[in-house]
């Protein structure tokens, strides 16, 4: 204590303290002073998602899974290009106005994102956060924008059912049965454009006001077909950290969205939050549960980077813009598995990042 006091008197520490006051970080949460505006969003999905209950909220529904390309991988890349262009256009900006692009997907070496970045003359940061990528890119980009290092940024994340199946599971035409706790990878890419804000009240757009970066949670789940159970502890952990750091309760938010826990994962997450004295009620939904209708029979629901990305850039942003939601939490949930790791007997660690958006 004594030593700490002394050190605080030195000029360098005072400036450090001042810096901390502008954007204070409480434990895992970064709270923004001005907030970062989300001025544009675009979502592109496949036929199956386009036939689901959220169909009217998507910007574009592809006619087929190849999207005019020869391979599914090339289709995924084109979807990224399409979504990023669409988001920049919807923000009313030119391509040259955006400084930096943050993007990630599920493929090896995140090729869909980095290949798509070839078409844009922007600084590129590729991020792998498994299915939590949308929240992670949004969180990191918001920090850089709020800090004033960049003015405009585009963030995106996406997945394609066919490419994900090939990488993580079995060939598409193989006649095997999916176990009942499995999920269906969403074909879709979502992109949003962020810009700095001069003051909290100046913005007419939804704003990112705080970000909670998660810690990796591994509760020993080995079943790769039950990713909801593997990710639910991390989602609950990050949410609890956010409530604790910002001194809020679940009731303070109009809605809380998790990325792709599915029905089972959502129920587990509810129980874990209730055990920690942060009970959530009707104001909590999982995007994986939202995206497919009952008749589509997709087991526990949607999964993949695209799931939370298209829900955020469609349904959620629409409601924020209309003012139906005042303050929401968006939690990206990722299962950090690889086929090699799981064949070698490893468990499936989960990671979740939480972004608070206000309108």
């Amino acid at each position: 204590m004594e030593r700490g006091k002394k050190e605080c008197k030195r000029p360098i520490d005072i400036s450090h303290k001042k810096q901390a006051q502008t954007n204070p970080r409480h434990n895992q949460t970064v709270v923004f002073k001005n907030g970062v505006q989300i001025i544009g969003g675009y979502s592109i999905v496949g036929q199956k998602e386009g036939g689901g209950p959220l169909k009217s909220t998507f910007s574009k529904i592809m006619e087929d899974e190849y999207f005019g390309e020869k391979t599914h991988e090339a289709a995924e890349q084109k979807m990224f290009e399409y979504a990023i262009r669409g988001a920049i256009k919807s923000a009313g900006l030119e391509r040259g106005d955006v400084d930096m692009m943050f993007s990630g997907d599920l493929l090896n070496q995140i090729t869909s994102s980095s290949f798509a970045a070839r078409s844009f003359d922007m600084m590129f940061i590729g991020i792998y956060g498994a299915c939590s990528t949308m929240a992670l890119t949004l969180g990191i980009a918001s920090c850089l924008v709020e800090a004033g290092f960049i003015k405009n940024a585009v963030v995106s994340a996406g997945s394609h059912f066919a490419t994900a199946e090939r990488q993580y599971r079995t060939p598409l035409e193989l006649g095997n049965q999916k176990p009942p706790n499995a999920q269906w990878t969403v074909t879709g890419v979502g992109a949003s454009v962020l810009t700095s804000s001069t003051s909290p009240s100046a913005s007419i757009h939804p704003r990112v006001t705080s970000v909670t970066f998660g810690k990796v949670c591994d509760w020993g789940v080995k079943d790769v077909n039950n990713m909801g159970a593997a990710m639910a502890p991390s989602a609950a952990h990050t949410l609890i950290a956010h409530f604790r750091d910002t001194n809020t309760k679940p009731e303070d938010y109009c809605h809380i969205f998790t990325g792709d826990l599915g029905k089972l994962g959502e129920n587990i997450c509810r129980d874990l939050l209730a055990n920690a004295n942060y009970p959530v009620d009707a104001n909590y939904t999982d995007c994986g549960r939202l995206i497919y209708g009952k008749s589509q029979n997709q087991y526990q629901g949607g999964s993949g980077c695209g799931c939370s990305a298209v829900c955020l850039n469609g349904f959620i942003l629409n409601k924020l813009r209309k003012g139906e939601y005042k303050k929401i939490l968006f939690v990206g949930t990722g299962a950090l598995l690889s086929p090699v790791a799981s064949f070698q007997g490893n468990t499936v660690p989960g990671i979740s990042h939480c972004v608070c958006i206000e309108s």
Partner: protein
Amino acid sequence: MSQDVETRNEQYADYVKKMALPSKYFPSLIWAFLIGGLITILGQSFYLLYETVTDLSPEMIGALVAVTLIGIAAFLTAIGVYDRIGAFSGGGSIVPITGFSNAVSASAIEHRKEGIIFGTCTNMFKIAGPVIVVGVALSWLVGFIYFIIGLFGG
């Protein structure tokens, strides 16, 4: 791993087991029986057909039936029908020789985009490979046992 983490993980595993949906064994079994039975009826019909129209030996006809079923399954895989059958019939369409055909052709189609040699040829037996390996290993084992029994004048 510490004791606490281990107990927590065990408790969590039990809890997840309670929450998770169990596999629906009964309908799966019925479908597997029906579709599997249908495939064998189809095989037997071809056998009878070949028996009447050709004068080949029973072994040759058996081989011909297998080839026919393999061809049909590969065709159904190529037009995207076999995986839909497999989604509800499970073991019923995996266990017969048609399942083997599906495993090989599905992998071959999937990796065609990476070229003939490094795509199709390399990955063709990705799923079905273990079946061949286990088949060869077991036949060796059975042959060996047969040989030992033969030595003692069985």
